[in-house]
């Protein structure tokens, strides 16, 4: 395995910029997820690393090699394609052995390494099946084994779970993560599923319209989003517009003052205040010591299993607050539409983000 360095990668299709000045260092053995809405350039970035898309400008280094000009077959990356792309005319064994044959390994070593790889993905015993005789999950494992068996410098996955049903997805997610950690694989994983990214990756790269919005650990991105896009894309956020009017003070457009942690980094330019729904509590009287407390009225109540979603009208905006379903009383009965009260949250739950 090796580190991967991307320097100012840009891909243009005519006037359209699919990937815009993308720079990223992936450490040896690190698991990085590229996350963003459809069409933001995730696949294009991954395919530039694999060599299927030529970068318009920029540099790609894998390990100590500058591979920018290399054809795909000389880059030594291991890619798992969205539709698996197994060779339909080859057995499971031949599929996995393909990369080793291309590297002209001897028969004995090929057999040994294929068996090892299939065991790793718990598919030993299916070696003579054709891909079409396998379930989606099994095909997925063959694709993983096929990419891993050649010991690539970097492991590239493009939405490898999107064809699996929800339950299987959870399982495979865990398996990929365990494999990745056990083998110390440098991994770049593309997904538009934020939960997948949050639970699997060491670091996330959030992209929008071809450009990196923020890079950081899952907790960093969730708790300290730098802009409105990230705050809204990772989890949900309530936003209030206005401007900073003093240290730790933000004046909403309605004139009300929201207090935030003055120690936290303050972005430049136009800002909004972002508050996570689970940080907002709703009560009939201001709780003692609560600093941000605003009158609110319940507009709708939705039962969501482990929690209750309250849609509140607060400071002229519609916001969402989550109430935990912790005591098991049918929670919907405790709150009703039209109920008046207060929405409350602490300054440390109040994030300033650029608009």
């Amino acid at each position: 395995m090796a580190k991967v360095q991307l320097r100012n990668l840009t891909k243009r299709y005519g006037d359209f910029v699919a990937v815009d000045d993308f720079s990223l260092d992936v450490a040896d053995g690190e698991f990085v997820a590229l996350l963003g809405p459809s069409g933001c350039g995730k696949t294009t970035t991954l395919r530039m690393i694999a060599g299927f898309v030529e970068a318009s400008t920029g540099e790609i280094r894998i390990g100590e090699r500058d591979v920018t000009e290399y054809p795909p077959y000389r880059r030594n990356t291991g890619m798992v394609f969205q539709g698996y792309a197994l060779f339909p005319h080859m057995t499971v064994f031949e599929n996995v052995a393909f990369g080793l044959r291309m590297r002209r390994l001897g028969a004995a070593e090929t057999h040994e390494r294929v068996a090892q790889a299939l065991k790793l993905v718990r598919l030993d015993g299916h070696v003579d099946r054709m891909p079409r005789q396998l379930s989606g999950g099994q095909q997925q494992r063959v694709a993983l084994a096929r990419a891993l068996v050649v010991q690539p410098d970097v492991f590239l996955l493009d939405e490898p779970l999107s064809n699996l049903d929800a339950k299987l997805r959870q399982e495979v997610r865990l398996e990929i993560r365990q494999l990745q950690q056990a083998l110390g694989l440098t991994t770049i994983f593309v997904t538009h599923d934020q939960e997948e990214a949050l639970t699997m990756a060491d670091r996330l790269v959030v992209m929008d319209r071809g450009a990196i919005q923020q890079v950081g650990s899952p907790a960093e991105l969730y708790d300290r989003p730098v802009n409105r896009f990230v705050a809204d894309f990772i989890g949900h956020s309530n936003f209030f517009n206005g401007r900073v009017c003093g240290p730790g003070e933000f004046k909403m457009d309605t004139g009300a003052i929201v207090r935030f942690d003055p120690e936290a980094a303050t972005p430049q330019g136009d800002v909004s205040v972002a508050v996570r729904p689970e940080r907002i509590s709703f009560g009939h009287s201001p709780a003692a010591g609560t600093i941000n407390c605003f009158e609110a009225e319940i507009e709708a109540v939705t039962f969501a299993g482990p929690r209750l979603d309250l849609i509140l009208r607060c400071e002229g905006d519609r916001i969402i607050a989550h109430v935990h379903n912790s005591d098991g009383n049918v929670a919907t009965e405790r709150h009703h539409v039209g109920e008046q009260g207060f929405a409350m949250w602490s300054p440390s739950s109040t994030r300033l983000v650029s608009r």
Partner: protein
Amino acid sequence: MLGPATLFVLAFLLLPMLVVLRYSVNRYVPGGLMLQVFTLENYAHFFQDHYFHKVLLTTVWVSVVCTIVSLVLAFPLAYFLARTRSAAKSLLVMLVVFPLLVGNVVRAAGWMALLDTKGVVNSTLEALHIIKAPLNIMYTTGAVMIGIISIVTPFMVLTLQSVLEGINYSVEEAALNLGASPIRTFAKVTLPLAMPGVIAGTSLVFILCMNAYATPVLLGGPSFQMMAQTIYDQISNTQNWPFGAALAFVLMFVTVALTVIAQMFLQRRYKSAE
């Protein structure tokens, strides 16, 4: 059970063949009607006369060469058509089909105008002082092959294209990703997966070549003979229906046999490709 299509095939394909089969065992009477007997003398005639062996061999040789050349010419074109995302794609497909809109005879006439000693090719080469005396291209086996290849290649392109369209491009990318050079990717992945198209295309084209009539007559000249022409001569010039019918069955048998053998060979070579 017998759908209308089956009945149609029976009536319009099988029936005429049965009639010809019956003719082929009749006895030829010069200048008269054939005798309704059961004899194998027409087939015996074919097996004894070297002239007809030579005609059959020429036919097979020309057909094999034309099939292989058209496969080699058509594959890159079909591959390009299958993979291109260009907006001009349907226009390109139209261009491939376009030659088929002109009849074989007219096309052969076109080749004559091009290849004749006073034709476009020779006069251009002479005007450019590349050659001193005109080249004899017309009335050679080469001219016939050029003519036939130009007719059958569109069929090959379309057959291959429809199969290549069905091959997921990411499978080729997976091969490249695993370290296969473009040539090995083609040999190990693209070609095996395209095999059904290669088999269908070569069979179709081979059959078309074996039965070519107008092109060999017009471009091959009087001394050049292929089977279709020989059969026609027997039937229309000498009125020898029984022998013509026997030759037709020999031609059909050889065509089917060679097609089946070639298919089996290709299928065995790429047995797991289906």
